[in-house]
């Protein structure tokens, strides 16, 4: 039996100062979870970190966080590796330049704990993009009438920064990023593959992730190169209509 109820895993590559607000937001969200009586494991995963990133996160103020370094040059694979290291019943991810709303972790855990279905993946209700570009959009539950697989086949519904039983990442690994071969958007791929594997994505009301858009983000680079996800079986023409739809 794990001693931790939740692992919050933060991935970093070249972040330094912008990680300050991210880390503070993480601590505030963790505090809310701990106040509710849950134990939280703090993980920092560095993927081919720059020396500046290593130095920044080496500050004593972050000593409560377990630090792990990888050399994947692939955020998805880093997340998969962190899922292997994590010991919380639940696992949540944060990128080192993004922020959590302070209620996110607790609200998501509370919602999942209250479900009879233990194969659910929780997402914040809103994604709030800021800095390099500004957009605010919803992440509807699969059971919402706003969910349609036809949209999902062309555009991702669910960001990677979610909370779920750790098992979700153990069952469904992130596909390796391979922009040269025309493949990217591993979060979109993962969302589709988890549904295929029987997981249900739900939206947690009144919660947000604040995603910092850099001048050139990975997603923007992927869009510029016009790459796509790998082919996912249920998106075939004759099966897509029923894909992911939940009883309302």
């Amino acid at each position, binding site marked *: 039996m794990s001693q931790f109820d939740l692992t919050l895993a933060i991935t970093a590559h070249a972040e330094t100062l912008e990680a300050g*607000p991210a880390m503070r937001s993480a601590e505030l969200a963790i505090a809310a979870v701990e106040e509710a009586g849950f134990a939280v494991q703090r993980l920092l995963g560095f993927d081919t970190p720059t020396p500046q990133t290593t130095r920044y996160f080496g500050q004593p103020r972050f000593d409560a966080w377990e630090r792990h370094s990888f050399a994947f040059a692939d955020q998805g694979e880093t997340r998969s590796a962190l899922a292997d290291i994590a010991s919380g019943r639940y696992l949540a991810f944060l990128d080192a330049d993004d922020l959590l709303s302070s209620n996110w972790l607790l609200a998501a855990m509370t919602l999942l704990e209250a479900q009879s279905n233990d194969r659910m993946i929780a997402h914040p209700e809103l994604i709030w993009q800021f*800095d390099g570009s500004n957009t*605010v959009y919803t992440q*509807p539950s699969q059971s919402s009438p*706003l969910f349609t697989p*036809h949209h999902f086949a062309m555009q991702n519904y669910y960001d990677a920064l979610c909370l779920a039983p750790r098992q979700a990442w153990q069952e469904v690994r992130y596909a390796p990023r391979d922009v040269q071969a025309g493949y990217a958007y591993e979060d979109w791929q993962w969302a589709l593959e988890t549904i295929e594997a029987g997981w249900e994505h739900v939206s947690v009301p009144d919660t947000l992730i604040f995603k910092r858009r850099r001048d050139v983000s990975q997603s923007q680079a992927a869009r510029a190169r016009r790459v796509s996800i790998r082919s996912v079986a249920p998106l*075939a023409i004759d099966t897509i209509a029923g894909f992911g739809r939940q009883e309302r």
Partner: protein
Amino acid sequence: MKPPFFKLSAAPVSKKARETARALTPPHTVMPRELWRRIEAAKRCAKPALYPREYGRIKPYFDVEYYLTRYPDIALAWIDPIAHYIRAGAAEGRCPHPSFTAQADQAQPQDARVTAFGKWVQQGCPDLPLVATQEQCPLTPIEGTAWARAERLFDATDVPHYGARLHKHVLAAWMNESPPGFEEEYYLIKPHFDIAYYLSRSPDLIEKNLDPVAHFLRAGADEARDPQAGFSERGFARRYPDLVQQGQSAFAAWIRAGQGEDLITSAYDDIAELAAAMKLVPITAQKLHRETQADVGQRLAFGELGKQVKAAAELDPLIAQSWPEALDLRVAPFNSALTVSRTIDMMRLQERAHRKRAKAVVLVNRPRWGSGRRMEGYIAHALAEIYGAHEVVVMTTEVGGDTPKGRMPEGIRLVDMSDIRSAAPEKQRLLFEFLRSLRPEVVFNINSRTCWDMLKPYGKALCRETRVVGGLFCAEQSVTGFWTGYPVHRFYRHLGKLHAVCTDSHALVSELSERYQLPPESAAKLHVLSAPVDASIPIAEAPAAANPRKKVFWSGRFDPQKRVDIAYKIAEAMPDVDFHMWGEKFLKAGHQGLAPAPDNVTFEGKYASFDALPIETADLWLYTSEWDGVPSILLEVAMTGLPIVGAHVGGTGEVLKAGLSQPIAPFDDVAAFVAAIRQTLAEPQAARNQAAKLRDALIAERTEAAYLQAVKVIVSAPNGSDDAESEREA
């Protein structure tokens, strides 16, 4: 100081009504909460002692919200608006309802028993003429009086989470009055106008202190600056032109139409199809979209969501800069016009493919004119033979229209994507995703530009997942005379990714192999699909030898490639012979200098099918061309036993066998053409005998069985894409 009419009204909103309104939770409304509470309190006023009958008469029709929006002085003074109207407003010409065109009624003193509005009510609220003005609404500032009123109205407990600064500007805009002469439309739309939304999207108006509603009337409507999230000025005007009056905004038209829930206000033309994808009717989908925006908007402005944003903005102030976007919340799947059309276009294509997979896909740019199967038809027939017709999809990507009868096998699915008008990058992505959704074993691209272009960004992924075969015909010359076309531009770029390349001629294979010095493994990807001949075409009888004038037939596109000018020169040199020419009479740019046809040339127009040609009246077939593959028309003519004199260029030599026909090189040697024609006409029987042998030779070489076998070889080989091979090796 109290306003002068205060004593006239003597009907303040009661303390109880104020407290009741204060305890209410405002719904999501574009109106500031401070004003909304005053309106709610005003609605709760008891009937006054004075003029109770008139009060009772007009109350059911009195638009309190409208009155207090139009006359914020009354709202600020906490006066019962109905009582105010009876005692003073009517005499001042104030207007209690947007459909009531008020005139100052000086004949109605303060003690009048029936107001002008009361009379209108008694008459059954008849329609009154709209006071439309031809003038343009001026851009007016938010006046100092409005700012002062906003200060009085401001309540710190009702400040939305996006902050007091924007909120105060919104309040001041609400307290501002209409430019004179524009009251009717201004106050009609103002109660529904989301000032915070409009200002956040046009921050220049904040800097210039301009009234946003007046700005909308003056310029915003024309500039498609929308008055609230979920209402598209342009979308509504496009959808309901009959409702929108000249010179007035679509937004006003929508309000006049009662903001009917049966009216679509979305910006997206494809809302009905998106709704269908959601298994909803369009109105329900729109309602869901608007309700989600309203609900989330309310929680952002006043609820936990907004509180969380505010707290996060204290950690990083940059977060607050996304508030304008939050007021225009993107609700999936309605995110943007681009994402909606992307989804809908995909659904359209899938619908056209009957929502069934296909084992083979043939892509063509357009249904090409002319008879015969052409390469796409032969391939489709072979694929239908291999997989079954129901497993074959033929797509037209650039130009739609009917495919000539008989070209495609019965039972295949024809999918036209030429009507999809998205920008090229989107169309390429759409084609890529659509092809993947079909889960085909093989895709043949026969001249689809979209497909060739798509292979650049998506080729690696697509070619790894399925066999993609590029079909190539001879290169072409541009109007400036330089070589261009897919064999020149695309072959070297894509051969590595492709499973195979098929051509119609050995000549092209030789040319490509030589030019690019292909190594054996690359050369092995090249396949010649030699078009079968139709042996059922009967040998045509020869015309009577006694005919005084011989007839030469010619057919083709009147374009630079087919060198009509050479045909004319030949005709000119042979005035004793009649030339009959069929084809599409158009000339590309750069070929405008064609001389008038000689007198012995007759232009016959297009023919519906090859068998419609009066071949039995012809003595000879002339074929001119500067460059070529294996023209279908030559194969058809060869089956009739008609002698052929033709240019020996590219792949024509694979039909015009020496000794059995008269191949001419170089292509522009008019004298050689004339000599060959003269010789053929002089010895008709010998020429017919050669032509019959040519027919036999082609029938032996070019069989459907051989073609089918060649296609089978291509589709049954393991995916030859370099990436697929690497993956297999890995």
